[in-house]
């Protein structure tokens, strides 16, 4: 039986463990160990574990931590932010961790905060996660009462304040510099990088931002060691991963599996396709990843292997396309989302994504023209990385560019037959 450190304490349908129960179930071991180490040694252990950012980018977590300047002459306060703004369509992994084991996240935040010597931490939560908010508030109060937050944490002399910030919507808040602007009470437009947030983040101070699942892994890295953690996953991709499947499979759901589980194995977990339906492809890691097809069932789902197949691991929550669902209609839905959520700052994004949506709507309505596909292809290049401040637009055209490649016939049929063949 494979190990499932992230979800071991989560009991479906039940309240999360309180602090005493959490500790009895092995919680706080990582924090106790971390507080006996130097901050630099904690960062080194996390780097050594090959834990990579679970928000989707897959950046080496310990390396990110090492970018935060520490030492007596560096600016203060330093900030830590947990990004709990899960809003990538098709992603539902952080909600489980927030609702199921909020103390695990808090423990991870305290360890991360200690490693970068943060003074203040924010937990940035989307408003719709109401059950998570209620449980997090309770867990934060328990953590303060139990000496895990506030002054002199567990007698170590380290101090950290933690505040829950409940957001007011918009996908852009999940982008790390948009999130910073939002926390400062502004519109969530992205900021130019560099400087990167570890150097100049909230109110210009050093700020470390990590995803919920990333932070939830941290206590286990410290408790069990980097070597143990690496062995859980695949090369350069330590740990387990919360993988999800949605769409017309027999058993949609979420599973904690070794990093590097294949597309086919994950589909098997979901019971395969519903009767009478055929698998045509999937977005492996949320809306802003390229399609994989039935030629990719053997692809290992980690941050190095999925790119070799032309996509990204993203959030690791797969959206399945079946043969009774129109790929053009699916793209229309996706580009509607991205166009709506564009913050309006960069021209390729605010102009181009609405243009894509309109063309896809026309194709679905039987009003497509042959040159439309060239315009869509132009848009995938126009919105490529480097043309916009943030990754929203490049992410938006990932499913589009791969759909134009794999489902070209379906796009052409819409134009030729002047209708959506699925209607």
């Amino acid at each position: 039986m494979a190990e499932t450190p992230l979800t071991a304490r989560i009991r479906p349908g039940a309240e999360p463990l309180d602090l005493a129960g959490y500790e009895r179930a092995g919680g706080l071991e990582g924090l106790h160990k971390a507080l006996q180490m130097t901050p630099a040694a904690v960062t080194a252990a996390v780097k050594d574990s090959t834990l990579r950012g679970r928000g989707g980018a897959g950046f080496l977590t310990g390396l990110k931590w090492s970018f935060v300047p520490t030492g007596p002459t560096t600016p203060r306060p330093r900030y830590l932010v947990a990004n709990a703004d899960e809003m990538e369509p098709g992603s539902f992994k952080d909600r489980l961790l927030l609702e199921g084991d909020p103390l695990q996240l808090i423990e991870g935040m305290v360890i991360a905060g200690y490693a970068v010597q943060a003074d203040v931490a924010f937990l940035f939560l989307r408003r719709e996660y109401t059950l998570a908010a209620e449980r997090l508030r309770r867990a934060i109060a328990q953590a303060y009462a139990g000496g895990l937050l506030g002054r002199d944490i567990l007698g170590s002399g380290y101090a950290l304040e933690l505040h829950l910030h409940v957001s007011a919507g918009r996908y852009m808040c999940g982008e790390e510099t948009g999130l910073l602007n939002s926390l400062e009470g502004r519109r969530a437009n992205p900021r130019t990088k560099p400087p990167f947030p570890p150097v100049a983040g909230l109110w210009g101070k050093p700020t470390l931002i990590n995803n919920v699942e990333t932070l939830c892994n941290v206590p286990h890295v410290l408790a069990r060691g980097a070597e143990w953690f690496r062995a859980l996953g695949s090369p350069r991709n330590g740990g387990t991963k919360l993988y999800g499947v949605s769409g017309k499979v027999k058993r949609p759901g979420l599973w904690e599996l070794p990093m590097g589980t294949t597309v086919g194995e994950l589909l098997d977990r979901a019971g395969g396709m519903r009767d009478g339906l055929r698998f045509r492809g999937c977005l492996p890691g949320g809306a802003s990843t390229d399609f994989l097809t039935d030629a990719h069932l053997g692809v290992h789902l980690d941050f190095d292997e999925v790119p070799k197949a032309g996509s990204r691991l993203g959030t690791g929550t797969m959206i399945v396309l079946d043969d009774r669902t129109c790929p053009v209609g699916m793209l229309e839905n996706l580009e509607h989302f991205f166009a709506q959520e564009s913050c309006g700052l960069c021209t390729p994004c605010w102009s181009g994504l609405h243009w894509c949506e309109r063309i896809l709507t026309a194709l679905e309505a039987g009003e497509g023209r042959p040159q439309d596909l060239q315009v869509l292809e132009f848009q995938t290049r126009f919105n490529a990385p480097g043309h916009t401040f943030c990754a929203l637009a490049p992410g938006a055209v990932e499913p589009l560019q791969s759909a134009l490649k794999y489902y070209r016939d379906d796009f052409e049929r819409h134009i030729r037959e002047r209708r959506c063949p699925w209607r």
Partner: protein
Amino acid sequence: MLTSEERAEIEAEAGHYPTRKALCIEALEVVQRHRGWVSDDALRDVAALLGMTPDELDGVATFYNLVFRKPVGRHVALFCDSVSCWIMGANRLREHLCQRLGVAPGGTTSDGRFTLLPVVCLGACDHAPAMMVDGDLHLDLDPAVDPAKVDAILERYP
């Protein structure tokens, strides 16, 4: 005028941030929790409390889709229109809701009971289609599978 209760709730968050302005999103939420929405008058009062101009605050308020700058019904139903729910029947759910409530998305029923709004992915993709009413998450709502289920849920919000 903000009530003393509203002011107290806003100021309770003040210690979390080094600037007054950073309070503004939570301040708008406090007002909305008490009044259902953020009127022009309320916006001006919050701006004055935080040392912002009304225009600056409105620029922030109108960016965020969960800050309501128009009156809403007693209950707000947010139906997910993102991709997993779309695959699983979100359009059927939307049509069912529009028909039952007699409004289009963005509208409020004439009796002031419901406002119906689309929302992005609610993080419940394994139980699509999903909807949230007043902060309560409701799952597996394809009317083609169980047409009475959605109606029974709406009944719970008089």
